[in-house]
């Protein structure tokens, strides 16, 4: 089936098998390997991308379902070499260790801030419910999201 979609502002038009997962489209068709697959039960969130402005798990969606959609992946955040404030905050606050969950964490964090520009610690934690990190214990991630929020408020 032929699908058209936009990823990080770039248009793709491709014939795909209906069973091709969106994450495999992103990684293997578009060559954007920043989005990771961490489970098959839609519980780890490593594959989180933004689809029409909403954070979704790209391993729990077929590419055909994204026909016509606008997608942003972690690769689409930095602009001309300038990091997105959430990326910058993850770096400053040591919000990552092995880095595997990080793209999904950053995308989920962006969704939190899109909907609530100054979240409390509890709201940040609640907003990260769909993302597992096995390295950081989340504390530095919470700090990063709060720092990004504070930075944006300046």
């Amino acid at each position: 089936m032929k699908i058209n979609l936009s990823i990080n502002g770039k248009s793709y038009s491709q014939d795909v098998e209906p069973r091709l997962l969106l994450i495999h489209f992103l990684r293997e068709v578009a060559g954007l390997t920043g989005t990771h697959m961490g489970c098959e039960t839609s519980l780890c969130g490593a594959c989180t991308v933004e689809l029409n402005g909403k954070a979704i798990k790209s391993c729990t969606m077929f590419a055909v379902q994204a026909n016509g959609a606008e997608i942003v992946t972690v690769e689409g955040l930095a602009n001309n070499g300038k990091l997105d404030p959430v990326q910058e905050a993850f770096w400053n606050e040591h919000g990552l260790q092995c880095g595997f969950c990080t793209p999904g964490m950053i995308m989920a964090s962006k969704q939190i801030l899109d909907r609530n520009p100054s979240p409390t610690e509890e709201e940040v934690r609640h907003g990260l419910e769909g993302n597992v990190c096995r390295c950081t214990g989340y504390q530095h991630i919470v700090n990063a999201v709060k720092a990004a929020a504070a930075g944006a408020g300046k």
Partner: protein
Amino acid sequence: MATTTTKTETFVGKRIRRREDPRLITGTATYVEDIQMPGMHYAVILRSPHAAARIRSIDTKKAVSAPGVVCVFTGKDTKGVGAVPCGVAMPDLRVPQHTILATERVYFVGHPVAVVVARDRYLARDAADLIEVDYEVLPAVADPEKALAKGAPAVHPQWPDNVAFTYHQDGGNIDKAFAEADVVVKQRIVSQRLVPMAMETRGVVAEWRGADRQLNLYTSTQIPHLVRTIVAAMLGLEENRMRVIAPEVGGGFGSKLNVYAEEALMGYVSMKIQKPVKWIESRRENFTCTIHGRGHVDYYEVAAKRDGTILGIKLKLIQDVGAYHQLLTPLIPQLSVLMMPGLYNTQNIRGDIIGVFTNCVPTDAYRGAGRPEATHGIERMVDILAAELKMDPAEIRLKNFVTKDKFPYPTATGLMYDSGDYATPLKKALDLVGYVKLRQEQADLRKQGKYMGIGISTYGEICAIGPSPATPAGGWESATVKIEPSGKVTILTGACPHGQGEETTFAQIAADELGVGLDDILVIRGDTAVVQYGIGTFGSRATAVGGTALYYALQDLKAKIKKFGEMLLESDDVSLMIGQVIDNKSGKAKTFQEIAGAAYRALKLPPNTEPGLLATRFWEPPNFTFPFGAHIVVTDIDDETGQIKIRRYVAVDDCGNILNPLIVDGQVHGGVAQGLGQALWEQAVYDDNGQLVTGELTDYAVPRAQMMPWIESHHTCTPSPINPLGVKGVGEAGTIGCSPAVVNSVVDALSPLGVRHLDMPLTPEKIWKVVAKKN
């Protein structure tokens, strides 16, 4: 003038953000799955759904002729490949033949049976469904104590008692200690099986270049050099014809401190098909086929005087081995025995281990590896003893600590504790948490029928693993430092860190030693063709052992730089500072760039000096290091639901000198999360038939952001005398210190109900049952 950055600031000890992060936060890092090659093939592994079965036949015909399939291999094909080895030598160790694909029998759910190779991974997956395996299902046993019972099914028919190994260690005079005791407390303590659950599952890309007789193996591992040595031997390939690359590694926690069947299997496949092949473990495979951690049933006895003085400790440890030994399986419980005395001054111990085969995936190193189990045991026992003697748990610890005048301190288990001051972190933690006030509050709450608990754990650990005599395959580490002709610095570390931040901390060490900027330095790891042989990152060793190798390599290099400086400045009194060599008399200076230029151009050389600026050191540590600390956890219990709320988590860790507090805090937080996971939520549960019923994230609960408390992380600093950096290691501290503090807190909360011990995980239902019994 110099183009090399010069500076006056130092880096060690500062909160410096990590140099590895830009690629990780932009999604441009390369993990195994991200590797693409022309002609790449994909492998899917068919695995046993049964815990024990005889394979009557395997019919691969339909799969072989399925669309896109290139070939299918079974155990018959791979008979020529060597067995997956156990790296531990012990007398009477029973080592089953661990073939890379099952041959006659399968021994656990997930046991690899066949591999399908196709041009497309979707097609490979489809074809796997077409393989028909006729199994004769056999009785299985999944519980180590049941496996020891008479009449239990034999995991391996040749060993009907299911005993994989035994180990005995005595220290001091344990019988005398128990004979003289006023009080003896006993408890069975379980440290349940856990799934390491690194976020990146395992994965392998194998690329055989036939014309070069060269196998390139990209694998998500903590130990690329050991993988190379072992997999080359398994495949019958010369070791220098194999290159192992650990690209970005998405977490290991011990689960990638191993050599797995799939690593050799992909090598085999690529050599057969003469094309690159990729295998990425699914999460379901990760749960069933990658090693698990813990799996202890411990029977403790502690003898003490009425005043609380601990006289001796006995431990009978039943280790659930699983169906095979993986690389270090039998070693892990030995670490528990070594750690039996904890921080306490007793010279009498007896430890007995029985390793037991079960029809489960093997256990091996998982964050802490033997030491969390031991700490959990002794810290629970000390609380049980305190309760028995009606003593305060802080007081009984302070009474029994090895005091700081006694270091280096020889333990009853044959260790030599390097340095320690155990009372200081405990006192600091007690102050921070407001212990006296909390005990008052607890008394008030108890009058109102409310359950609040305060749990203390004072832990010690064996880190910087370790001296080679104590470590299979060697316990040293290597480092190379080069100053390139342009003056830039390249570090090659054999330690292969993967998320722990050594690309930053090693640069900090080198920057301070050489007086250059961080941006002048690049740290390279994880490629056996580039980096000299090394051991790897595990056992909280990367900085303490690998960093020390780097430190000594830097000293060698500095000496050589000085020689060139002396020659160029025509002086015999020079010093090295801020990226230059300065003549102390004239004040004239030569930059590293100028020195490197001279060293590589080699028009003139200092006496007895070779061209180039490179130094390599293999550093053998004279001892382990022994970090320690105190964790205090305050819990409130909802007596209606049994839910536990962590009100405070105070951690005071002493890991010696701290090179980068930001990174150390991150290690503590992550460690605590895994300790809390074990204490409260995580358990790998096999049913009676050997089915892993927590076989996915749907039923295996890992800590999530909203489940974690705020961790108040503090430190004391007792430098290690073992290495010049004074560091001890911090990767496992949080995990080791955490679980007993949590359980002690909950048991303390429920102690008015007569509760003395609860096994992990402390699920709400378990707590509710205790509370409901009283109501």
